[in-house]
């Protein structure tokens, strides 16, 4: 039995991806893996915070349906990203075990799975909530897949800087879904995630530079060098740490948020300085690992503070900052 490879990319990428299974389809866990569940959970979380800070009067069923569709849309874009990047995933240790490069799911299957979920999530979000939210979700998926994955990722070391916009949009989609509009509350959250993305990914890129080099992906450490990357990490951290405080000054966050953003920003800055200062040996590796891990915690803490303040009513119980 032959392996049916109908994907147009196959001819140009032949030899880089293992043979497909004779029978299409892998385990259910493979299909879940295509949706990048960890990224999806962060998207759902930030979209939920976008919904909560909007303070809109929306029926819980519509809010839950909207959040589900945002999650499905995020998963669909992850799936299409894996479909397009299967050739480079196969060359990287970090991604070689993903379902497509490992040969458990055929590229054509992943493509149809991703397109179906993309179209379905946008349509259902439009019907359940409103078409502004659906348009924003469609834009996010297209931006991530077409602009970032197909365009920027293999072309420029600024790939994750510009592509970070896709990951920063979910709070705005959440606000649009429940209120029918977007406002400065989620605009500032967009800016925080956008500025947070470079130090987060470049810390990982410092650790996986060999992997990216093998795959030919022009990440910053491979193009500009590790030292220039460390400077850029420091620069973006110097931007995101004060920007993280902005919601407190704009009335979006309260005292709890202000304390979280201050302490979190200082820790992030300290770790970025460590990455800048420690340039060789095991200590440099550990510094990058610490920054990468804490950057995730930083974002989760900021958004958790907002969720606690707005969702649990703590914002009203605490004094405004500044008074």
């Amino acid at each position, binding site marked *: *039995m032959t392996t049916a490879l109908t994907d147009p990319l196959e001819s140009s990428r032949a030899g880089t991806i293992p043979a497909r299974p*004779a*029978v299409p*389809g*892998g*385990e*259910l866990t493979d*299909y879940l893996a295509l949706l990048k569940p960890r990224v999806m959970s962060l998207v759902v979380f930030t979209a939920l915070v976008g919904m909560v800070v909007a303070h809109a009067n929306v*029926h819980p*069923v*519509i809010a839950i*349906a909207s959040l*589900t569709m945002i999650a499905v849309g995020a998963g669909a874009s992850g799936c299409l990203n894996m479909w397009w990047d299967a050739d480079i995933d196969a060359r990287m240790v970090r991604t070689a075990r993903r379902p497509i490069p490992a040969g458990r799911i055929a590229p054509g299957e992943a493509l149809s799975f991703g397109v179906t979920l993309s179209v379905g999530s946008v349509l*259902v979000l439009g*019907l*359940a909530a409103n078409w502004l939210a659906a348009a924003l979700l469609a834009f996010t998926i297209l931006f991530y897949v077409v602009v970032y994955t197909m365009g920027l990722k293999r072309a420029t070391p600024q790939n994750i800087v510009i592509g970070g916009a896709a990951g920063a949009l979910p709070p705005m989609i959440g606000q649009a879904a429940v209120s029918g509009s977007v406002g400065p509350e989620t605009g500032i959250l967009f800016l925080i995630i956008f500025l947070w993305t470079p130090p987060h990914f470049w810390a990982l890129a410092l650790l996986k530079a060999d992997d990216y080099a093998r795959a030919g992906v022009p990440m910053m450490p491979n193009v500009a060098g590790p030292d220039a990357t460390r400077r850029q990490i420091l620069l973006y951290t110097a931007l995101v740490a004060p920007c993280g405080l902005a919601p407190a000054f704009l009335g979006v966050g309260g005292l709890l948020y202000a304390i979280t953003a201050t302490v979190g920003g200082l820790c992030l800055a300290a770790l970025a300085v460590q990455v800048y200062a420690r340039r060789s040996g095991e200590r440099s590796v550990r510094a990058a690992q610490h920054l990468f891990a804490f950057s995730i915690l930083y974002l989760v803490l900021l958004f958790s503070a907002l969720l606690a303040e707005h969702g649990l009513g703590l914002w009203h119980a605490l004094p405004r900052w500044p008074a």
Partner: protein
Amino acid sequence: MNGREPIAPPGLTPDDLRRRRSRSIAIAVALGLLAALFYALTVVKLGPQILNRPM
């Protein structure tokens, strides 16, 4: 069921059949959830008007 193992069609191993069966169940569950979602959304969107229809 007659207690016998299902005979795999040519080209399919028992493992293929197992994966196909689990995928089929997952698709059925997803479609069921989608139907429930549409039902709930319809009730929420229409509200009390859902019972107000010409006979």
